[in-house]
């Protein structure tokens, strides 16, 4: 059933490509603004880059989550599964996985221009970088899907998603920036694996919480 839901999201996105495209272009535009605004001090940008990267990822995630959940809202498509004999927690997990896939996909697309525009050297382990991206994005979308689920039927959803998501995800912003910064400074992983642990526990705690309460959220 989980795969059934994920395939549905993938199929719709494969056909329209609107979620990934909009996230990618939006990410690219913010990167451009950052590059222009921080051009004054090319050396400083190295210190700021990890933070900037996660700001871009947070902003694009909000955009992606909003689109991903509006798939369910348009024409009340969600009624197909809210009235079906389906465990709604499973739907939450499927949304987390779809969101993770979409956001990671857009990250892969805009990270190359991010490094080129900001003149960042890419001399670090790509495997470790991928691990940070995976856990950080997972943490963001786990709480993000929960909040988007809330705003699925609430008013003011465009405003409420970032207003609730940004403060809740502040530990993710700190931990992911710390990881990425240490990686860019080529510090050994043993010095910063504490931050990976924070990201991982955030992912797991909010993933489980979302699974438990999603049923009560989607009821009308």
């Amino acid at each position: 059933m989980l795969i059934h839901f994920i395939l549905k999201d993938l199929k719709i996105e494969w056909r329209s490509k609107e979620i990934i495209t909009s996230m990618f272009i939006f990410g690219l535009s913010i990167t451009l603004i950052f590059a222009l605004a921080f051009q004054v001090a090319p050396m400083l940008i190295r210190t700021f880059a990890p933070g900037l990267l996660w700001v871009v990822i947070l902003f694009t995630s909000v955009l992606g989550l909003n689109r991903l959940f509006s798939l369910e809202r348009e024409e009340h498509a969600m009624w197909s599964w809210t009235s079906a004999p389906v465990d709604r927690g499973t739907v939450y997990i499927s949304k987390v996985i779809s969101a993770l896939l979409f956001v990671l996909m857009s990250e892969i697309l805009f990270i190359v221009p991010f490094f080129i525009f900001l003149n960042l050297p890419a001399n670090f382990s790509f495997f470790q970088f991928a691990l940070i991206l995976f856990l950080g994005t997972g943490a963001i979308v786990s709480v993000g899907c929960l909040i988007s689920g809330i705003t699925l039927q609430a008013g003011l959803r465009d405003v409420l998603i970032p207003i609730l998501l940004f403060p809740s995800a502040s530990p993710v912003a700190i931990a992911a920036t710390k990881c990425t910064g240490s990686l860019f400074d080529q510090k050994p992983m043993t010095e910063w694996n504490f931050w990976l642990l924070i990201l991982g526990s955030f992912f797991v705690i909010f993933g489980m919480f979302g699974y438990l309460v999603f049923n009560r959220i989607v009821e009308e």
Partner: protein
Amino acid sequence: MESGEKIGLSGPNGSGKTTLLKMISGIMSIDSGKIRIGENDVNPDEPDTRKNLYYLGHSVGLYPGLTGYENLTFISGLYGKMNPNISNVLIKVRLDSAHDKLVKFYSQGMLQRLKLATAIILDPDILLLDEPLTGLDVDGIKLFESVIVEWNELRKTMIIVSHNSDWLRTNTDRIIELKQC
């Protein structure tokens, strides 16, 4: 209500017809009181209590970004039905030509037929139909009436909400009038 009954539900706007159907179907949580189907209470926390009934809302409940065929496959998957007859049902509701058309390009009448097709495929014991006539042309209404006759012969329980009380009077066993309080 007895099983196999065909009941019309009417009443003024805002009297809670749709709310009632949504509560029976489990989409909406229940504040007070209980809804009992056979031996079981309807409980939104228990997915299995929703197995034998199907809610056909007046809003669509279909994914605009999928084709008609894909929507039917998705919905039948939700009910654990691996039904190979989707193409036949599409022919029956005369949507075979729109098989691969995205639902967002469907007209109102085509959407209603597609919704009818979901109900035929799922083949539930209890059907909750909310304004099924809206947007149907004369052919569509005839088609719908014939499907209702079929369902009635299969002893399915139906609750039909409609504004059209003449139609309800000729096509249902009895009518329940909801009053605004």
